[in-house]
């Protein structure tokens, strides 16, 4: 490939680190890993999604070019897909509404505690998400501490949180918080304080400063936060499983059930690919507009 290409500087003095083949040598192990365990398995899903079960318990398939698999899962699970996207959108919006002020406080009011405040946002995620889910069931239960307190304050009895959409969206929002706070803080960090001072010197009120200066400049961070929250939320399994009820299942639960419980690998693969296509499209749109660097928090 690039082996024969030489940069002009390499002509003059070709030390090892400028050899054109060196980067490819460094890249090869990682690229092989990605091709073998990411690209290949994904590519393989396509023929599987067009197959039919030969024996669902032995997981043997026959390829039949069965496009109907897609039509079937789309008609049957369109409501679940719509629900998943709605939950993901709601949790992302909520997370943005909470995370932006938080990032603002960390950036402009954090002072020397900035690092600590940021670390505190990440810290809860060093406990097992599974144990956190169990903790939420304790907190949100009908006789749990939260509802008991609210009832004492006048909440009508019979109000439920656990096994409702509110709990699922809440759980998704919680998980999205660090992915929202970090990129927004990073992008606010890049706004020079002098710029804000200059705007104020020009008699701009706080709202104008925010709308005309800060928001546009932090937009890439916000956009990255949205993508980083939306995608895990849309494909989430755990929150609906532990905090939701039977009317709050998400597409991830369906894929899991199709494959592990109903053992319908072809239809599971079809649904997974639909989800993947939707998410990849979102990422591509984002990358075209903002580049990929904010997505990687760099």
């Amino acid at each position, binding site marked *: 490939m690039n082996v024969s290409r030489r940069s002009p500087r390499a002509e003059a003095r070709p030390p090892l680190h400028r050899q054109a083949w060196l980067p490819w040598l460094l890249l090869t192990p990682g690229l092989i890993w990605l091709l073998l365990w990411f690209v290949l398995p994904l590519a393989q899903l396509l023929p599987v999604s067009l197959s039919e079960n030969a024996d*669902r*318990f032995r997981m043997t398939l026959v390829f039949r070019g069965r496009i109907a698999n897609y039509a079937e899962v789309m008609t049957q699970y369109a*409501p*679940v897909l719509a629900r998943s996207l709605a939950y993901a959108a709601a949790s992302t919006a909520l997370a943005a509404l909470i995370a932006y002020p938080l990032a603002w406080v960390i950036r402009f009011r954090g002072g020397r505690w900035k690092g600590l405040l940021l670390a505190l946002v990440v810290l809860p995620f060093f406990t097992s998400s599974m144990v956190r889910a169990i903790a939420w069931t304790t907190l949100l239960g009908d006789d749990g501490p939260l509802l008991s307190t609210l009832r004492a304050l006048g909440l009508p009895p019979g109000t*439920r949180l656990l*096994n409702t959409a509110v709990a699922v969206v809440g759980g998704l929002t919680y998980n999205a918080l660090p992915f929202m706070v970090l990129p927004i803080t990073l992008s606010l960090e890049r706004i020079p304080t002098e710029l804000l001072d200059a705007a104020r010197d020009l008699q701009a009120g706080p709202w104008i400063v925010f709308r005309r200066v800060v928001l546009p400049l932090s937009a890439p961070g916000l956009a990255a936060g949205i993508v980083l929250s939306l995608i895990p939320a849309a494909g989430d399994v755990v929150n609906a499983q532990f905090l939701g009820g*039977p*009317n709050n299942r998400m597409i991830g639960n*369906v894929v899991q059930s199709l494959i*592990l419980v109903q053992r319908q690998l072809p239809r599971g693969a079809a649904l997974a690919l639909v989800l993947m296509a939707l998410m990849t499209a979102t990422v591509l749109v984002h990358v075209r507009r903002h580049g990929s660097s904010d997505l990687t928090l760099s």
Partner: protein
Amino acid sequence: MPRQAQPVPAPLSREEPLPSLGRRRFLRQAVLAGGAAALGPALLAACRSGGGDRKRRLVISNWPLYIDPTKDGVPGTVDRFRKQTGIEVSYSEDQNDSVAFFAKIQPVLAAGRPIVQDLFVTPYWLAERLIRLGWADPLPLDGVANASRLIPSLRKPSWDPSGRFTLPWQSGITGIAYNIEATGRPLTSVDDLFDPRLKGKVGFLTEMRDTMGMLMLADGKDITRPSYAAAEPSFARLEQAKKDGQIRAFTGNDYQDDLLAGNFAACVAWSGDVAQLALEQPKLRFLVPPTGTTLWADVMVMPKGAPHRQEAAEWLKFVYDPATAARIAAAVKYISPVAGVQEVLARTPATAALARNPLMFPDREMEARLRVFGPLASGEEARFDERFASITEG
């Protein structure tokens, strides 16, 4: 090298000296440890294939709280078996979801390799599937003379007509558990689960046959020869209740959390669990619906290629001894498959009350309510699974 229950990589020991290490050395240590861990399984796998073992071993997998444990210095059944036979038993209580368990063992058995277990306890319908797939070995019944002392209803059952592949561990009754304080009244029928006053406080089981069996019987259908057509009205009823928000959740064993935490007022539940739970929550009641309900069995299966047949035979003989079976029954409070247990329990004052419990020893009236969910032909089963999943996951 003998077959290991789990390949455990050994980098744990690296944890200890961590604080005294410099940062860079820690990094190197961690990488080394990681490398060792990466190699570990490969080495274990290499060892696994070679050589036979001389030690007498047995690997059993069962559901939790399904045997009498060693407690307060009194040895439980597993320990007594170890002591009496000298067999090294690995007894794990790692069954908690039969569908997930099948997903685990399926690729191994399909590839013609033996799985870790010599014996595992699994629901009757899954045993039937394993037999059909040719993934179960016949049990070493020659060495188990007392296996003939089964209670009559469990001899040559519908899931194992030849009686060669399974022996029952315990059976039980699916019923309705409820907290009488939360319901405010005793429940009397399956219809009570659909009472709007219990909206959002009702649980059903993800175990399809138990949920659907009870509903179909309430609809007057025969579940010993189930068909999809007969089940459809019950499916529709379940689906409507779900849409209305009547059903809070479909659960496995975790209905117990919800009952104790007050999230469920009533739910479909299993007899022995509720007897055990009632010790913690005295307000719990258990109803066996008069319209009928499922009698199920968890059975012992020997997976294809399990190496310790002789040891398995000794285990079966041991647990089918009425004295041992009585200890197990007293601890788990399900229906013992061994004839004579009732008499053993009745002889001891501490357990005499158990001998009169119709949930453990169904009397005529109780027996009249109990049905076994019959085998489903493969295509029928897929339709049942799909329809049920469309309700629980849709």
